[in-house]
């Protein structure tokens, strides 16, 4: 049963574990620094489908299937599936589930969706009502551009603060620890914390990192206070998709608000996914798939191998819509935290 720590954090004493994981990416993600670690790379943006949206469904399905195979479970054994994506009404997630019979709980937290799904999937298992759950999320550069920005072939000039929406998906199977042979060398979900909506007045949709940094800082500070720990107690504090500018702001905010230095342990999925000096990815990656794929391709394997022991994953999301910036709304953001521990 989950147990409350401090004001906001919840501990999961049964230590649900990641029984299977998978990360899929597109061509540019495959050419990036983590390319070799992805489980599969989809070389062509449309994957022979008739629309970008269908391609994203394929992407998420591929991650689900591979995670299931890795966990040595069948789809029928999954008792609850948490998933989400950036498309209107989360269609990539629900359409992907047409092929399966898993009970579905669709969730939306913009780019923090994977952290949200992961936290809920682990909580469900720890609560005892479910033995096995899944969390998955995806994003596709082309379907996101179409929905939030301009047609793909439109010739515009990106601003220097723009990030690239990742064509990527990640999925994990969460299982109960007890009596499962796979759990010995897996990552466990130890604590979770949910985000509060933060808005420090950023109104430019090309400044996502800046919009999300306060949310990440707020969640981290609340988590550290609740657990009476400091950044040095973690091998890695992994933010979702702040990019280079958002990362600088996040570190600055944590220093200013709590007097803590996170720079030695802070990494950002958006910065890890691309080599921004070499690749055309702005100041880093973004999108739901970005943090999902980086967590599944980089942090989780490192936890399994024992290279990292404690990783605090902070999925960050900018909660804007395609029309809200046009209505002069500023961009609220959220960050959900999941503490993952290795053996």
């Amino acid at each position, binding site marked *: 049963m989950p147990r409350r720590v401090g004001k906001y954090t919840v501990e999961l004493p049964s230590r649900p574990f990641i029984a299977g994981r998978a990360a899929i990416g597109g061509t540019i993600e495959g050419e990036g620094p983590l390319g070799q670690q992805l489980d599969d790379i989809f070389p062509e943006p449309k994957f022979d489908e008739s629309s970008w949206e269908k391609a994203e469904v394929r992407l998420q399905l591929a991650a689900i299937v591979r995670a299931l195979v890795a966990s040595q479970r069948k789809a029928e054994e999954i008792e609850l599936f948490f998933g989400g994506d950036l498309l209107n009404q989360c269609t990539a997630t629900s359409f992907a589930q047409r092929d399966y019979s898993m009970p579905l709980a669709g969730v939306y937290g913009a780019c923090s969706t994977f952290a949200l799904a992961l936290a809920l999937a682990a909580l469900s298992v720890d609560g005892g009502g479910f033995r096995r759950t899944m969390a998955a999320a995806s994003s596709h550069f082309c379907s996101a551009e179409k929905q939030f920005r*301009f047609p793909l072939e439109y010739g515009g000039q990106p601003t220097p603060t723009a990030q690239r929406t990742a064509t990527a998906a990640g999925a994990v199977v969460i299982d109960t620890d007890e009596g499962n042979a796979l759990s010995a060398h897996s990552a466990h979900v130890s604590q979770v914390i949910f985000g509060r909506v933060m808005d420090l007045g950023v109104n430019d949709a090309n400044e996502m990192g800046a919009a999300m940094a306060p949310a990440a800082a*707020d969640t981290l500070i609340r988590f550290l206070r609740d657990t009476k720990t400091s950044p040095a107690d973690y091998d890695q504090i992994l933010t979702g998709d702040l990019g280079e*500018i958002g990362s*600088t702001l996040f570190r*600055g905010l944590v220093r200013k608000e709590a007097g803590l230095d996170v720079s030695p342990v802070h990494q950002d999925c958006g910065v890890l996914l691309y080599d921004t000096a070499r690749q055309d990815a702005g100041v880093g990656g973004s999108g739901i798939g970005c943090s999902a794929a980086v967590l599944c391709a980089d942090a989780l394997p490192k936890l399994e191998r024992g290279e990292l022991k404690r990783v605090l994953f902070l999925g960050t999301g900018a909660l804007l819509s395609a029309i809200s910036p046009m209505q002069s709304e500023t961009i609220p953001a959220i960050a959900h935290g999941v503490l993952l521990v290795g053996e």
Partner: protein
Amino acid sequence: MKTDKTQYQNMVKLASPPSTHLKNWALSFLIGGAVCAFGEGLSLFFKHLRMSEEQARAMVPVTLIVLTAVFTAFGLYDRLAKHAGAGLGVPITGFANSIVSPAMEFQSEGRILGVGMNLFRLAGPVLVYGSAVCTLYGVIYYFFIR
């Protein structure tokens, strides 16, 4: 949070790299100029083919539009425009691209609800305010200038 919105805006300004204005201006001037020079060349070429001044003047934008459509269709236009900025956006090439790109993008929603409804998605503001200003000028011309 102790940090208020104004303080944070200052932090954001400090952390964000400035737009590379000089480079952008130079590139758009050079590429925009090249497009215009190419148009001038086309005009001479059409006149060489014994077209009248009027015909040649009509053929230049038509050729630029067709070329833009081809470049857009092959995915080359946006790569060039990323560097050219206003250099490709201001000439008729920008307008052509703003029509061809949604036409390609919304194929998947069908001919009517997709292409038909979205064709002027980007060019719409130019058409709306362009015709509005023309109408206004027409009225002024009719009453005061004619």
